[in-house]
């Protein structure tokens, strides 16, 4: 099975698994049990992991709050900042139409708490429209949330410029770096963002852990999503899953050490894939072709076949997707692609491929052949029932 859905989730790196493994064994202690050696040993490992996460994103260890993943980190950043500001603070929260669902839903939902969500459109290439952002910021704004790299198209936003504008307007800046972290250099301090959300399983770490970067100078204050034991300085109660944190830390250290090498190789594979497909499929388009994107993210618009039919036709050998995994089974067109001006029909012909650390050149060649072959078949014999049957089975 060829796995080319590395934007949905990535295989856990055996080295990250190896780092985590002892904590799934003799070192099982609760990291909050400061009273005995089992607990202290786990706590020590969690703190080492915290340093590794911090190092990857230009943060201090104390600025890292472990969460269950990026969804929780995004919820905590957005709702936490808004709720801390409270009734007396600014009301406006600005984000982009192409953000991950968990950011959009968190922002939209704050309307019920008397905040003012502003969802900005993007240009056809997926980039933020700076004129629109400036206009939005003319009203005092509490928070601007813009992702570093899009999870469907890989489009990289100019975060430095976004953060500069937002800071100048006195707003907090949050960025979802779930896709960008570990793939491209990211330095929270240098960019001047206040909050950043990261996920382990998108960077070859385990599922079930992520983190929120919370800037300390000047200190950013948040109201927790839920309370209890008061772990993570009261920002996130609940036992930290020490083994997952250790695996996450190791995944960050590996990403930091191997980023340059990985991205060069992945970029080569990407060019190989696209070259091979283009040679066989005239009229194949890349979405957001003219702007900077993540090396491993490929968003392809096929001329004569729907993405779901292609997925179904190649399902025995190839794992690819139409867009965000969370909404894989939805028939509704991708909100990211439609925000970039694609018609529902164009969006339905878009396939998302994610190339990862463990993807090989022969896999890329085979995937291209499978997709091109399936596209040829489908172009000649449209099969409206294939995808429906596949989905029903899924």
């Amino acid at each position, binding site marked *: *099975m060829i*796995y080319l*859905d590395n934007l*949905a*989730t990535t*295989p856990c790196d055996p080295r990250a*698994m190896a780092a985590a*493994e002892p904590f*799934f064994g003799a*070192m*099982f202690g*609760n990291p*909050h*049990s*400061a*009273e*005995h*050696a*089992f*607990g*202290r*040993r786990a706590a020590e490992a969690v703190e080492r992991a915290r340093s590794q996460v911090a190092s990857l994103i230009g943060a201090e260890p104390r600025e890292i709050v472990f969460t*269950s*993943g990026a*969804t*929780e980190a*995004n*919820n905590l950043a957005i709702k936490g900042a808004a709720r801390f500001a409270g009734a007396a603070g600014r009301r406006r929260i600005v984000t982009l139409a192409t953000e991950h*669902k*968990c950011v959009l*839903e*968190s922002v939209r939902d704050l309307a019920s708490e008397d905040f003012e969500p502003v969802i900005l459109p993007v240009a056809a290439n997926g980039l933020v429209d700076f004129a629109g952002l400036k206009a939005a910021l003319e009203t005092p704004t509490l928070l601007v949330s813009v992702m570093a790299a899009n999870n469907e198209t890989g489009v990289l936003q100019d975060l430095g410029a976004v953060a500069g504008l937002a800071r100048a307007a006195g707003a907090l800046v949050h960025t979802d770096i779930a896709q960008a972290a570990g793939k491209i250099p990211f330095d929270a301090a240098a960019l001047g963002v206040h909050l950043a959300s990261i*996920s382990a*399983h998108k960077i070859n770490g*385990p*599922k*079930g852990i992520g983190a929120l970067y919370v800037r300390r100078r000047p200190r950013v204050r948040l109201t927790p*999503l*839920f*309370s*209890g*034991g008061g772990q993570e300085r009261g920002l996130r*109660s*609940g*036992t930290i*899953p*020490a083994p*997952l944190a250790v*695996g996450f830390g190791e995944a960050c250290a590996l990403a930091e050490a191997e980023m340059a090498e990985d991205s060069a190789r992945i970029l080569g594979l990407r060019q190989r894939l696209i070259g091979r497909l283009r040679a066989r499929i005239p009229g194949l388009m890349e979405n957001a072709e003219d702007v900077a994107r993540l090396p491993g993210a490929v968003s392809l618009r096929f001329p004569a076949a729907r993405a779901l039919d292609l*997925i179904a036709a190649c399902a*025995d050998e*190839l*794992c*690819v*997707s139409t867009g965000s995994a*969370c*909404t*894989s*089974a939805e028939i509704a067109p991708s909100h990211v692609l439609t925000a970039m001006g694609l018609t529902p029909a164009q969006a339905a012909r878009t396939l998302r491929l994610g190339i990862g650390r463990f993807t090989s050149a022969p896999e890329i060649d085979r995937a291209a052949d499978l997709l091109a072959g399936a596209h040829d078949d489908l172009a000649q014999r449209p099969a409206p029932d294939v995808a429906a049957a596949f*989905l029903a089975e899924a």
Partner: protein
Amino acid sequence: MFMWLCATWGVMTSQNPSFIYLDANATEPLRPEARVAVLEALDMTGNPASIHGAGRAAWALLERARKIVASRVGAKPADVVFTSGGTEANALAIAAFAKGRHVLFGATEHDAVRAAAMGCAHSVLPVLACGQIDLAALAAALARHPQALVCLMLANNETGVLHPVAEAAALCRARGALLHVDAVQALGRIEFSLAGLGANSIALSGHKVGGPKGAGALVLAAGAPPVTALLQGGGQEQGRRGGTPPLPAIAGFAAALAAATGADQLAGLRDRLEQAAIAEGARVCGAGPRLPNTTCLARPGQRADTQVIRLDLAGIAVSAGAACSSGKVARSHVLEAMGLLELAGSAIRVSLPWNAEPAHIDAFVQAYAAMPPRQAAA
């Protein structure tokens, strides 16, 4: 001391059988069955929400785990909402059910429940000296707040005391109140079901049954009010909990639960330990029916933290209360609520893990007896 402990720790745990873990209520050692399941799931790539082969394999694993959890507590698989753990499960239930309802919670509830409930209009229900909820007080409170949300834990994390949940549920039902039960400490140690408890929902945690940290569940009874997501986005868990499910932790949770067949075999060991401690002048906090693995031992006049350090130096891990608050100076709200304020500073919690052995009890008894008998209270 700390450095020395850190430096020698690896040797002590891996080779020295005298390094003994008696703090299961903070976290249980991972069961071998869970370890296998975790490592297998870590080796799987798919996101359970993806429709391709890898995704469907992940989804099948997730749903298998859901069935195991559901059947253990007599629920439908669709009514199991996986969370990151017990704290999130409790917070999710209380956020959803407290809307427009007064919250009544027992004075000995875990901080996760107390913190969530304190964000709402609430009243605290007293417990009896034995540690069990005062049912007369509950009945009186329900008369004032018939539409309440009642939060009552099945087993207390510090004393192991079991609350009369079924009786409380009958009172709730008669008034039209909702009942949420934090069953984190009870799961896998004693058998119970949603129907038997009469609860509208229960919170569970994986790492308290010998699974890995990082997964828990909120399980809903038929007819429970709808749950609105605390973590939004992605629509996972039927829109009740956004985020990619932590598959390895969930798979490990289910495997541990399947292997956890009750803690009755620990009762004899616990009782022997307790009797030996009593002979040394200890008082047991919590006279009600208890979990088979837990005892809370007060040694009047001797500070709990001193006892814990002495035992730690003897290679025995116990705690002075909930792990979450281990680092804090605050006295146990549990013992205070039981009217044992004078003992609260001198009580340690000993909780036997699933793999406790008679030799561990012997070692504890020896170390406990070796502690200097009385000191002036600080």
